[in-house]
């Protein structure tokens, strides 16, 4: 895994618990903040050591916490959606640039969270419902996604930013047989010429890759590392 982040996770309910565990599994440093000691007790039982009791209404306390420990990401994972919205807006007002990730259970909240300034929003119910759909209707796809995303740790998704002057700079995407030559699959890219949107390669447009574009690739970890070395991406 690329970088290890310092993440401040709020709330240790049903969501918080699962998220914290998965983040810790991926090797991130996870600090947990909750409004009651009870929640933190379960967290400490699960092996988390960096624990804080906070009052989410208290702005100075929140600011000090983030500045002191130098957290890189904020994760709002209270089971209560309203708290997540409140927390998101609080942090956005305190820190302009810090990435805030929040979870929600409905479209309505998702909209509010985005308005409040969340960088990423996970709609848990949509994710679960769609997963359910794939399991019953397209089990092979579900299997594939499970395998790639969660089970097989050697297969990873990566975003690779094209460095200036690398051999891909200025090349058309169709001219390179990624899957044969480098054993990785390019799913899509963010073509800076066309704006900041993610585009699937299957669209059929032969994009010209420039420095600064982001390729989204999936493949075996080693293959990706090799590919990055070839590209000259700094680790």
């Amino acid at each position, binding site marked *: 895994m690329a970088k290890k982040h310092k993440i401040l996770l709020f709330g240790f309910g049903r969501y918080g618990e699962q998220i914290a565990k998965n983040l810790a599994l991926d090797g991130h440093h996870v600090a947990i903040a909750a409004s009651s000691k009870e929640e933190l007790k379960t967290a400490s039982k699960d092996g988390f050591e960096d624990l804080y009791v906070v009052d989410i209404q208290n702005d100075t306390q929140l600011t000090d916490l983030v500045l002191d420990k130098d957290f890189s990401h904020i994760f709002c994972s209270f089971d209560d959606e309203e708290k997540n919205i409140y927390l998101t807006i609080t942090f956005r007002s305190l820190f302009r640039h810090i990435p805030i990730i929040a979870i929600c259970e409905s479209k309505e909240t998702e909209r509010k969270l985005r308005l409040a300034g969340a960088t990423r929003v996970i709609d848990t119910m949509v994710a679960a419902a769609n997963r359910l759909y794939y399991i019953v209707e397209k089990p092979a796809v579900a299997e594939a996604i499970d395998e790639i995303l969660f089970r097989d740790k050697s297969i990873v998704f990566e975003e690779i930013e094209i460095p200036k002057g690398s051999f891909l700079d200025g090349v058309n995407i169709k001219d390179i047989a990624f899957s044969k030559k480098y054993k990785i699959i390019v799913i899509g890219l963010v073509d800076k010429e066309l704006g900041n949107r993610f585009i699937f*390669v299957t669209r059929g447009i032969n994009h010209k890759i420039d420095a600064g574009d982001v390729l989204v690739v999936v493949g075996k970890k080693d293959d990706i590392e090799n590919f990055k070395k070839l590209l000259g991406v700094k680790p």
Partner: protein
Amino acid sequence: MIFLILTSVAIIIEEVKTPISKWLYYYDVYFVTGVFIIEYLLRLWVYNDVHKIIIAEYEESLFLERPFDTKRVLKEIVKKKLEYILSPLAIIDLLAILPSYRELRILRIFVLFRVFKLLRYSQNISHFFQVLASKKIELLTLLMLVAFTILVSGISIYVFEEQHNPHINTLYDAFYWALVTISTVGYGDIAPVTHEGRTITMIIILVGVGLISFATSIIVSAFSEKLNEIRENRIIHTAKKLDNYYVICGFTHMAQLLAKRFKREGIDFLIIDSDAEVVERALAEGYLAICEDATQADAFRHINFDHVKAVMALTQTDMHNIYICLNIRSFSKECFIISNAVDPNAHKKLKLAGADYIISPYITAGFFAAKIIDEPIAIEAINDILIARKNALCEQVEVIKGSFLEGKKVGEINFDRYKLILLGIVKTEESLPGEKFYHKFIFNPDDDVILEVGDILVVMGYTVSIANFKSLVIESSLKHGKKA
């Protein structure tokens, strides 16, 4: 059957004006009647099981050590059959047969009873009668009241006007007038002429209005009481006709999203929820939904699990989900069950209760959340694919026997031409027992991997490209089939 009835009625209408051809006559008398007679006899036959009566009597006689009583058995059988013969529907059937005896002209009207037979084949009408039957006492009271009023007013008008009114000659006229007046129809062919008669008229008009509103209110209330039941019956009836559908227990938030997805993909499903208000909402969305408690065995009595693809227990409490799983397992051993789990501790319990797969929004959220920090764009891409938001899809394409995919090496297929990405192949392996699902997933297979029948390609691409590719695969397999 409906055709027979309609032709029969058409013939009788035609017969009024013009003599009908011999063939039509034969058709009506012999064929239609023949079918009806056979139907009548068959219904009489299957009405009850004669064997059961005989066996019950035989066992009883053995038990009580007395000789087998043939007479008793016969009496019992005849009693049961008579019970059928005297039932209203059977009488209609019988009357529909009678008009074949053309010599009696009055019997011809009974041909119309054949129309009544139509009711037999219609669900709605039987519901209608069920509703009326539920208000039997009220309707009887009303009938008595009407009869009483007609009797009193009819007799009094007869007494007052028989001498003065040229239209009222018999008591029958008087009753006819009374009913016409009381029902507020008032043809006016018979009108009272004396003061006494008019006074009575005024009184029974008032009474008539009251009686009619009484009748209306009885029927309306009966229907509004039964409306839900009728609607539910209709839904169950529709659901029974479905093949390969899903049953969703609990119309929770997750279920709603799933339902939306299913509807978009054109997949049939039935929602069961114990909260009437929630069911109302589901119905308003245009889904099939019934109000039942899925933890009770009663809820599934109408569902044939052979036609159910999978059952999903998506309620918010683990306890309910466990009950639902157990409940369904008691109906069907094979049915695929997916359950929602709130507490991680419930996983094991749900598995024990019979759930084949467990989904938890919390755990899914956990997976996604962990990845979103490192690979936000990738996760968003995956999400787009999962939700099918931007027409980008992940699909499975099976290698069908005889299709151009069979026996080919991966490298030989130019996926790029189809504007698709091959993510991997799922190879089905028979050698692994116990596992229900597909097995070995080969990510980004090498060019020399050979595709076999039954393998499933997991491809990614836009809706159009995938549909195109799928139809090409199917077409090629069909062509192959023709050649062979």
